[in-house]
Every structure is written in structure tokens, then in C-alpha cells.
């Protein structure tokens, strides 16, 4: 519907990124020092290790209004804390399948291994991710629980008619 396209047209995705302190956050700093310009849509939350990433954080970000979540950790075998990134990988894998069954597009959540020296990869991944999410359009998890009540006011299906009492 044209209305939706209109929304898409001026839609600027909000993406929350969780970067590990040692590899990916450092890489993002490197991208900065090297003045690698990239899409402004990703906002980084620093955690010490991708292993700290609690799936709750991903859901919370989406609930708070993010349209996508990017997770960055050290390459397998390179974790500053030896194994954190593997734990992240396991949680992420299961979380993805959960999100899938919750009807949320897989592409909205992405896990990338980015080493401290890979500033260019930060740039690439962020640009890609922003584009992908832009294509998917806004994730309308808003409004939050408190206005979920109007959320539940229905378009009346042919078979039924709304009784007066139903108007809230």
C-alpha cells in the first residue's frame, strides 16, 4: 500500500549495536580514527564481551523502539576472555529461532565477528545492516504495553459488528 511505501521512504532505521570492548568496539574506534564515514543509524552500547549479551537486551532494544540489533564480538578463537564469543553464538542461535517463530524477520538481528583491526568491516557491516533494515521497514513493536489497549481495538470483520459497549 502506498501509505506503507510513504512511511518506508522517509524511514530512518534505529539500530542498537552491542559491541565487545576488545575487538569490535576498538574496531569502531579505528573506523573513527580512519574517518570512515558510515550510516548514522547504528548506536553502540559497549559491553566487555559479547558473552555478556543477555538475550533480554536484544528484546528490550526492540521493545524500546529499535528496528534492528547488531551484535559484534571477537572472531572465534580470539575472544579476549577465551570463550565468551562462543557463548554469544549459542544464545544468538537459539534467540534467532525464537524470533523467527515470533514472526520477526531474521535480518533484523545480526551477529558479526569483527577484529580490532577491521575498521573497514565495521563500516561495511553497519552500512549493509542499515540498508537491510531500511528495506524491511519499521518494526512496529511500539506502542508499548500501556497503550496496547487501543492496540486491541479491532477493525470489525464482516461477520461481526461491534457492540456499543466495546468502544473504550
Amino acid at each position, binding site marked *: 500500500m502506498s501509505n506503507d511505501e510513504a512511511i518506508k521512504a522517509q524511514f530512518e532505521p534505529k539500530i542498537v549495536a552491542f559491541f565487545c570492548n576488545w575487538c569490535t568496539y576498538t574496531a569502531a574506534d579505528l573506523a573513527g580514527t580512519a574517518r570512515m564515514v558510515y550510516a548514522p543509524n547504528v548506536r553502540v552500547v559497549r559491553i566487555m564481551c559479547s558473552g555478556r549479551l543477555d538475550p533480554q537486551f536484544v528484546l528490550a532494544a526492540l521493545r524500546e523502539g529499535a528496528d534492528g540489533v547488531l551484535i559484534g564480538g571477537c572472531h572465534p578463537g580470539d575472544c579476549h576472555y577465551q570463550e565468551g564469543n562462543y*557463548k554469544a553464538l549459542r544464545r544468538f*542461535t537459539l534467540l534467532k529461532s525464537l524470533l523467527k517463530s*515470533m514472526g520477526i524477520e531474521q535480518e533484523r538481528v545480526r551477529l558479526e565477528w569483527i577484529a580490532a583491526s577491521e575498521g573497514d568491516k565495521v563500516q561495511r557491516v553497519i552500512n549493509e545492516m542499515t540498508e537491510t533494515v531500511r528495506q524491511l521497514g519499521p518494526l512496529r513493536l511500539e506502542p508499548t504495553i500501556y497503550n*496496547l489497549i487501543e*492496540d486491541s481495538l479491532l477493525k470489525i*470483520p464482516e461477520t*461481526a459488528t461491534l457492540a456499543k459497549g466495546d468502544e473504550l
Partner: protein
Amino acid sequence: MSKPKVGFYWCASCGGCEEAIIDLAEDILPVIEAVDIVFWPVALDFKRADVEAMPDGDLAVGFINGAIRTSEQHEMVELLRSKSQLIIAFGSCAHLGGIPGLANMFNRQEMFDEVYIKSPSVNNVEKVLPSEKIDIPEGKLTLPSMWDTVKTLDQVIEVDYYLPGCPPPVNLIKDALKTILSGELPPNGTVLAPDVALCEECSRRDSKPEDLALREFKRPHEIIIDPQQCLLAQGLLCLGPVTRKGCGAACINVNMPCTGCMGPTGRVTDYGAKALSAIASSVDSKDEKEIAEIFNHIVDPVGTFYRYSLPASLLHRHYQQAKSRGK
């Protein structure tokens, strides 16, 4: 002076919560000694009008079980809210959405189609669906409207306390009543159950290994369960570690893994996400493919991790369905 008045009401629930009150057995007598039950549609004959007649705040406590999914339930709980000093969300459904909350994987249209048309046991040639207003010679019949999204009680009205469980364990109910009658009220929003996970009171606690390494997930009917050993150690997906204690590990004692009806502990925002995180952490593999393989054993992630708490989860409901509603 007159005894404090209490009311019970049920919304989208199975009736088990009412049973739980009956399960108080002879202990219900002191309760009746202490309070006047002035509203309890299941057990005693009261009408909405009776409640409407009450002055606001007339009820000391309103116990509401069941999730909220119809306009009628919504009206009733709002009514009760205005009439009661305290509202207690009674049982998993009112607390977290409960089993009925799994309906949030679909929208109303889908459910109607399934229940009134597709279901093999249904013979509904004219495809009649419940409609909210029907004209008949005698006049007009109306039904409450059914919502797309099932909600927890606190998503529609303010809730003072929660009694978790499906149904709430008798001892917890007793304690709750004692506390409330004692007048020494805990802070608002308290869940009236110990804020520690189930493992602590689990009879198999000591048999849980420190180096749990999950490589596959079995389902209860697939194996012969050792009645002593920790169920997780036997490859069964037991959610005890994630779930609030207070039930005395009732299910586990009869060889059934915990499915989480008591909900999360106070420090956890999203039960399913936390459960998922804990379970995934104990998986023993570093290979992407293999990991995916292992998780394929979990047939229905949502049903497993959000069995009682989908509406209370951060996502509340299936997303595409919500979107397809094109609001």
C-alpha cells in the same frame, strides 16, 4: 465491626484457580471466619449489578484470575478495580498471561477460523462465527468483543500483588491471605512467593552437576526418567533454574520437568529470553552448524520458553500477525 469484604472473579482461565481455593479444604473456614465473600460468580450467585451497587473501595481485596481477552473481562476488572482497595492477580494467567496467552501467536480471525470452521470436530456449513450483535425476532442479542491480543491483568488495570502459579500453591495462598489480613502489606507490585529459583527447594538439587554440558534435548516420553537425578542432567529441558520457587517442585517430584508456571524471579525482565540464555549457555559445542543442530531438538521454542508468559514477554505477541492486522 464488620469483616473485610473480598471478591473473586475469573477471566480467561481454566477454573483451576477456583479449585485452588477449594483446595484450601478445612483451612477455608478460618478464611470465612475472617472475611465476607461478597462476590464469587463461580461459587455463589452474584450479579454484575451487585458489584456496581457497591461504593468504591468497598472490597478490601479483589482476587482476579485469568488473562484478559474480551471487552467484558476488561469492563469487569475495571469495575472491580474501582471497588477494591487491593487487587491481586491470582495465578499464572492473570500474572503473566498463562496458557491462554499462547493465543498471541495468532490473531482473532485465525482463531475463529480454526475453532469455528477448520477444526475437524466442527460441522459449521454456513460458516457462522460468533458475532457481537445479532438481530432476532425477540430483539437484539450482543456478545462481548474478543480481542486480538491476550493481556495480563496488569496490562489493563493496576495490580497490587501477584500470586503466581498454575494454579497458585495452597501454602502460598494461605500465606498471602495471612499477610493481607495482618495488615502489614509488602511494597506494591510484590509477587507473593519467595524470590529465589526453584532449584533451591528441588529434591534433586544435589544431583545437578557443576559441569552441565547439553548436547541434545530429550522429551519426557522419550526416556525412562531416573527419579533421583536432576532432570537437566538427564537431558530434559527443566526450567527450574529460571523459575520462582514456592511450589515445592511439585512437578519434578513426579518426574515432570518444570515448565515455569511460577514465572521469573524479581530480577528478570523477560522469562523466555532469560531461560533461553541459561539453557544455551550450557550447550556444549563451538561449531555453528552443530549448535543449530542441537537446538533443532527444541520443537517449539515459544511454547517452551513462554508457556505461561507470552503476553508478559517483551514482545507480547507474534509480530507478523500484529502487523497483518494492518492497524
